[in-house]
């Protein structure tokens, strides 16, 4: 689409204009940012250049949490048409509100990302992201509709039915988390299908970090081209960056989301090509604007042009958020991946606890404690053991590590409205 191919000069102009507008809007209409600017002694109405912009303090996840629920709003709430929220695994959820214009802009960004992945108005796309507070389902839905694709809004769960509809509808593209795509392939094989016969051509994956091995595995099993897209609720949702057909990274829509790479320790802005933390400023956000948001994601902005001819720069695939990563036996694990898997099982509740089993100073193993639901309870040992095995198998395809599963009585894990301690460390002999 047009903005994917503009010259760097044209883009710089758009960015400068967008930055000035966003900063002025935040200063004039968001009490949160007014306070930040006043404290720092700067008046953004005096801003002239990008250097001035670098004076603005970063916004962190904690800032957004502290603003729960509506502290980030810069328009009256009656102008907000929709609210999304992050899952809040480690504390209060982060809330995002969208005006009509925000929703339209967002759908436009997602449409660009889907087009890069190879989706056209002729493509039949199944969305297997959950529809709800999570930005993934609705974000992709409206973006794909804007692009003109045929959308099958399946949402998450019920893997067998997903598969049978995918086959019957001759679905060509799948929107899901990479781990769900792997799980579906496994289930398809169990049901006696060959995943490669489904005719899926494109995978649009997001919602969790991926690895090269995982993408290759998905491509091999389904016979599709796996593309990864990137986004976060705090900034807008999916549609910030996405992979084209060439691979090698994700094009960041930098005319719409202004990127910087900083040293996560010092906050210093790094040169093009350097690896650091991605900081984003959406240049078009009306409802809940955010400036210089520290994503916690480690990547770099690549200088090399992409063979597809788009002029937007590539960022590296995100292998994980730095703050909640756990490393066990050399495998990087994110609680969000585990949560996503558990959400697919009606036999267990979404409440869980990760127990890291530590031996002689090393992380030896992972135990996942999860509560049974009345639906999951059976009088038969073999059924409960089979449930444990099913969860373990699904997690193994997601994490490349088979954790121990421990079933608990309902409501036995602590519930708290504040910071829930989901990860505990236990020393073993």
């Amino acid at each position, binding site marked *: 689409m047009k903005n994917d191919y503009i010259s760097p000069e044209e883009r710089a102009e758009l960015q400068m204009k967008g930055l000035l507008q966003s900063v002025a809007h935040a200063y004039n209409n968001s009490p949160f940012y007014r306070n930040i600017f006043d404290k720092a002694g700067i008046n953004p109405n005096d801003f002239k250049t990008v250097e001035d912009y670098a004076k603005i303090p970063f916004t962190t996840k904690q800032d957004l949490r502290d603003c729960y629920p509506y502290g980030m709003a810069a328009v009256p709430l009656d102008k907000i048409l929709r609210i999304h929220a992050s899952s809040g695994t480690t504390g209060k959820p982060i809330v995002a509100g969208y005006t009509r214009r925000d929703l339209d802009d967002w759908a436009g960004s997602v449409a660009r990302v889907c087009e890069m992945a190879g989706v056209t108005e002729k493509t039949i796309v199944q969305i297997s992201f959950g529809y709800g507070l999570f930005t993934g389902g609705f974000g992709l839905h409206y973006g794909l509709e804007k692009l003109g694709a045929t959308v099958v809004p399946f949402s998450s769960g019920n893997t067998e039915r997903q598969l049978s509809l995918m086959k019957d509808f001759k679905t060509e593209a799948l929107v899901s988390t990479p781990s769900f795509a792997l799980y579906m392939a496994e289930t398809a094989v169990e049901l006696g299908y060959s995943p490669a016969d489904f005719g899926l051509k494109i995978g649009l994956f997001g919602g969790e970090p991926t690895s090269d091995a995982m993408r290759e595995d998905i491509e091999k099993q389904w016979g599709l081209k796996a593309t990864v897209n990137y986004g976060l609720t705090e900034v807008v949702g999916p549609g910030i960056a996405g992979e084209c057909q060439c691979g090698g990274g994700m094009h960041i829509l930098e005319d719409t989301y202004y990127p910087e790479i900083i040293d996560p320790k010092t906050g210093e802005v790094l040169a093009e090509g350097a690896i650091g933390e991605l900081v984003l400023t959406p240049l078009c956000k009306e409802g809940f604007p955010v400036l210089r948001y520290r994503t916690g994601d480690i990547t770099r902005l690549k200088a090399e042009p992409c063979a597809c001819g788009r002029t937007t720069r590539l960022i590296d695939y995100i292998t994980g958020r730095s703050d909640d990563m756990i490393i066990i036996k050399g495998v990087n694990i994110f609680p969000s991946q585990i949560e996503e898997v558990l959400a697919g099982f009606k036999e267990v509740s979404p409440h869980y606890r990760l127990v890291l089993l530590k031996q002689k100073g090393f992380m030896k193993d992972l135990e996942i404690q999860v509560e*049974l639901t*009345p639906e999951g*309870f*059976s*009088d*038969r*040992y073999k059924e*409960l*053991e089979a449930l444990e095995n099913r969860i373990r198998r699904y997690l193994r395809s997601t994490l490349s590590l088979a954790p121990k599963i*421990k*079933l*608990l*009585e*309902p*409501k*036995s894990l602590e519930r708290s409205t504040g910071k829930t301690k989901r990860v505990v460390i236990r020393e073993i002999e």
Partner: protein
Amino acid sequence: MIKQISVFLENKSGRLVRIAQVLGEAGINIRGLSIADTSDFGILRMIVDQPDQAIAELKEKGIMATVTEVIAIEVPDTPGGLAKVLAYMNDAGINIEYLYSFIEKPTTNAIIMMRVEKINEALEVLKKQNVPIVGDDRIYSF
């Protein structure tokens, strides 16, 4: 057929006591029970005098419980008494998932609670072989 109550138990201290207390306070008498465990959890299976009330009471206290139908039979309290009945089931191709004996006032027979996969077929076999089947009235009101 007899209603058996099954309860999921985490392997941690005080769980069994709690269930016994909940039922005791509600005036429900535990007539028989069996418990087995894996390293992580156990399933407590009970025969009580008021199964419906017991389920309601446990649920109200947030304890997950479910009802399973089992067969109660009477076998002679002599060597080979049980073996004979088990052979009938084996010959009929009926798989017994588990069984346990039941507490009864002194008689010459023992009462066995039995959970099988094909409950109706099992009842047919037992009737044909004249194995005394114990009805729920008798079990609940011993």
